[in-house]
């Protein structure tokens, strides 16, 4: 009888604990969503911090130029307007949760992904040179390029290079295979790039191998 009641006690406990565990896991799932959002916000902060810095500097410059070279002040003020509007668009995209792809968040994602894979990464923190209309497609390039580096390259280092009209993802890994082969990733990306009025190239990064993915927007 003693044993029996211990058994019943034990089993009752198991059932009770199961319920507590289930609740705990539900709570964890809910909070994990929040964590993901916090990550996104962090990326956003990094880049917005940068945009605001540039705006501050340009406003100060414009103020100094105004009395002596008003025509140059005009162009600084126009830059400020563009930077602020684009930063605002980034804020909106991130908040709305539709977030197709933005360059800002993809760069953040790239940094995380490469760090997670133990690959030394050089990832730009500033996107303000890139005109707003190129940012989405550049975001897709970064996403697919970095995914491939992590999956296929065996590289130790990876560099992302941004200019106003181009984006490159370069690594020092085993480089492209002669067979070409390949899946959907680069094919889909090439289509996307062409639709946006750009050209995609892939090839060896240098004499010692490595992989280079480069996209140029045509003027």
């Amino acid at each position, binding site marked *: 009888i003693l044993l029996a009641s211990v058994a019943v006690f034990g089993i009752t406990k198991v059932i009770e604990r199961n319920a507590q565990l289930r609740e705990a896991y539900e709570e964890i799932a809910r909070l994990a969503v929040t964590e993901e959002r916090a990550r996104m916000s962090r990326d956003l902060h990094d880049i917005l911090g940068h945009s605001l810095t540039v705006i501050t500097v340009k406003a100060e410059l414009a103020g100094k130029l105004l009395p002596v070279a008003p025509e140059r002040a005009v162009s600084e003020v126009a830059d400020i307007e563009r930077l602020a509007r684009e930063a605002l668009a980034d804020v909106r995209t991130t908040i709305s*949760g539709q977030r197709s792809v933005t360059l800002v968040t993809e760069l953040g994602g790239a940094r995380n992904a490469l760090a997670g894979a133990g690959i030394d990464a050089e990832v730009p923190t500033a996107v303000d040179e890139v005109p707003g209309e190129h940012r989405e497609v550049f975001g897709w390039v970064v996403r697919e390029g970095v995914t491939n580096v992590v999956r296929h390259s065996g590289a130790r280092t990876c560099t992302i290079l941004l200019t106003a009209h181009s984006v490159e993802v370069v690594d020092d890994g085993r480089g492209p295979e002669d067979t070409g082969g390949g899946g959907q990733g680069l094919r889909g990306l090439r289509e996307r790039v062409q639709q946006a009025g750009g050209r995609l190239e892939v090839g060896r990064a240098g004499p010692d191998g490595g992989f280079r993915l480069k996209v140029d927007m045509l003027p």
Partner: protein
Amino acid sequence: MTTIRLLLADDQALVRGALAALLDLEPDLEVVAQVGRGDEVVARALESAPDVALLDIEMPGLDGIAATAALRARVPRCEVLVVTTFGRPGYLRRAMEAGAKGFVVKDTPAAQLADAVRRVHSGLRVVDPALAAETLVAGASPLTAR
């Protein structure tokens, strides 16, 4: 050319002031009243007889959507263009149900904003498509939940 008389309601005084100055630069637009609270909209509209009211959504006293409904009821000849920073879920639908004719972001370039004012004044609808998409994503993100 007839002048379109405007009322601006926004609790961000700096935004309101800059928008007023920008719209005043348009030859056919004149800002005749500015308020910083939603519950002052109707009274000021009764005094100043605006043709179009640009209403912010998040304001103290009365939010822009309730202010839209109140204004449409009391001053029906005044059309409403809602201007907002964020399209939180449900804003667009509720603004339109309250009687707004237009729904755009505050940072709409001045030329386009002036154009939106003219269209709303002539009875047309103006909805910023990106903002509409944002506000239709119902409850998608706790970042928008308030």
